[in-house]
């Protein structure tokens, strides 16, 4: 149980799903995450669980809806174009308050884009994506270990809040092999008396819906959801800090770019530049408060992302003009080297603070 295994991120995630008691997985092939469906197609039947290749991502997400509505632990995964196709279903799932786990192994876009890794789905993941007022809890793994760990955490948070949880990974974390350890896990006891399991004479009928045709009722539901999202913002912010205690400058990066920044930070520190790293682990809820605190300590913040500058908007919101917030990123599946990042940071430091 506690032994280390060498696994691909996607496979570690699939194995974790089985260990987390995932009752059903529905998916549609898309690179770079087809291994999840393949792994589960092989392994789930051995555990008497349901695994199905659906006719599309539209079907997958609605199968997840049905299974989650019946009270089961249900999950799907895909990559960017497929996640776009699921947005209507995700909105319905959030509206109907169904717990489920979704995984986006982000590839670069827009459109069909490329199968190479990217972080261009930050806006889609954290700012809605589908229609209407809803939020998902978004977890951003930066290692194969976290790909596995966040499956357990994701299912638990989904059940706790009756809300979809998204693991926002990327093609590199999904495809790379690292050692991973599956920790013992006990599934929390969750009341699912709301599920549609068939109405016995002893209770009223259960129905799963996101329809509230009267404005008063709709707003009431919106307020209920918003109270839940507020509780999530208050209780579920997760982040990792490295070298921040003495930092003059700060990198903010998540997932794969945080890995690259960690190396960049080491190089910079070697050169005597005191840079720290804040790695948001939850992208929603976002660690605004901690960033705000750090903004009164550091002189410059650099958001590093594999997109054209999406998360940097949240960094600016948190920092609120206290110190300069800059952005550096590559796109299209291209990776910045740690040296490039350091060079960029040095230039900016020079520009903002040299004289």
């Amino acid at each position, binding site marked *: 149980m506690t032994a280390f295994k060498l696994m691909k991120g996607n496979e570690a995630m699939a194995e974790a799903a089985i260990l987390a008691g995932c009752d059903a997985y*529905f998916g549609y092939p898309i690179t770079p995450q087809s291994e999840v469906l393949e792994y589960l197609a092989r392994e789930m039947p051995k555990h008497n669980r349901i695994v199905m290749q659906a006719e599309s991502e539209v079907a997958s997400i609605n199968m997840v809806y049905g299974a989650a509505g019946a009270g089961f632990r249900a999950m799907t995964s895909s990559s960017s174009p497929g996640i776009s196709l699921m947005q209507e279903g995700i909105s319905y799932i959030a509206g109907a308050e169904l717990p489920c786990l979704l995984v986006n192994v982000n590839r670069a876009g827009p459109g069909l884009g490329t199968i190479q890794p990217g972080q261009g789905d930050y806006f889609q993941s954290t700012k809605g994506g589908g229609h209407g007022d809803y939020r998902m809890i978004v977890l951003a793994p930066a290692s194969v270990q976290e790909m596995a760990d966040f499956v357990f955490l994701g299912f638990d948070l989904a059940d706790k809040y009756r809300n979809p949880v998204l693991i926002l990974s990327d093609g590199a974390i999904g495809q790379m092999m690292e050692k991973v350890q599956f920790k013992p896990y006990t599934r929390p006891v969750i009341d699912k008396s709301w599920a549609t399991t068939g109405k016995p004479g002893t209770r009223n009928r259960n129905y799963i819906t996101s329809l509230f045709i009267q404005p008063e009722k709709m707003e009431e539901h919106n307020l209920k959801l918003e109270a839940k999202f507020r509780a999530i913002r208050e209780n579920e912010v997760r982040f990792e800090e490295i070298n921040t205690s003495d930092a003059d400058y700060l990198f903010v990066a998540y997932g794969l770019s945080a890995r690259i920044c960690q190396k960049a930070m080491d190089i910079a520190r070697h050169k005597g530049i005191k840079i720290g790293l804040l790695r948001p682990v939850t992208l929603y809820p976002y660690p605004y408060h901690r960033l705000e605190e750090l903004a009164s300590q550091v002189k410059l913040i650099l958001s590093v992302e594999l997109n054209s500058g999406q998360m940097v908007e949240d960094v600016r919101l948190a920092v609120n003009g206290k110190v300069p917030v800059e952005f550096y990123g590559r796109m299209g599946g291209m990776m910045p080297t740690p040296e490039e990042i350091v060079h960029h940071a040095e230039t900016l430091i020079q520009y903002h603070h040299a004289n």
Partner: protein
Amino acid sequence: MQTEEQVLTDKITASCQTEDEYELVYHKPATLVDVSMHYCPGCAHSLVHKLIMEAVEEMGIQERTIGVAPVGCSVFAYDYMDIDMQEAAHGRACAVATGIKRLMPDKYVFTYQGDGDLAAIGIAETLHAINRGENILIVFMNNAVYGMTSGQMAPTTLPGMHTTTSPDGRDVSFYGAPIKVSELMANLPGAFYVTRQAVNSANAVRRTKKALLNAFKYQQLHKGTCLVEIIGNCPSNWKMTPVEASKFIDEEMIKTFPLGDIKVPAAGDIKTLQSNTHEQS
């Protein structure tokens, strides 16, 4: 002067001492929630809701039945059916039903879908569910228009039929011919029982009820999908009285959508069902 009706009522009252002496010849099923429905007067949706709930009551499967409501006029089906239900996104009922049924194979699962929902936006989910032989019942309410969004053309709109989006009548050369869903789906090996019925006369209602009962029973067999298409109506958007709408079904709708069984199970397939041989509907 007493009206004829009053005379009749007085006579009946005079002949019965107490209410208990009335002979109860019909009652609404207890599985139907006792509220007034939002449907337009004469709309077939309310009648078919009742038939489904009668079938559920007669089979004693209320505890084991889960319905899936569509997006369409029947979006509020769960307000009327006293069973556990899920409301699906437009067209996705069969995918939702798949998710429910695969996890709970011993429950009875049905979808209730209009022609826009099933035959336009949701035809992929429907076809694939049937092709997989999902062991569910699909109740397909074909009223040849989009009722809920007020009368636009549907994939099942008749050639030449006027709708708000085919104001000069459906031009088949532009939009193609109406899709005969049942004939199409009956070709799939996963389809176990496919029938097309109507509810515009007492006999038609009886046959539809029988078809629904058969379809529910077949779910015990785990042998594939049952598709019960019902020619509904939409007096409001057809711009007809309910009586005219019933006539329109007999005179026009069934030319394109002939009634009757399209695929029936082989006798050997249903012999394990206790006491129920398939009755031709």
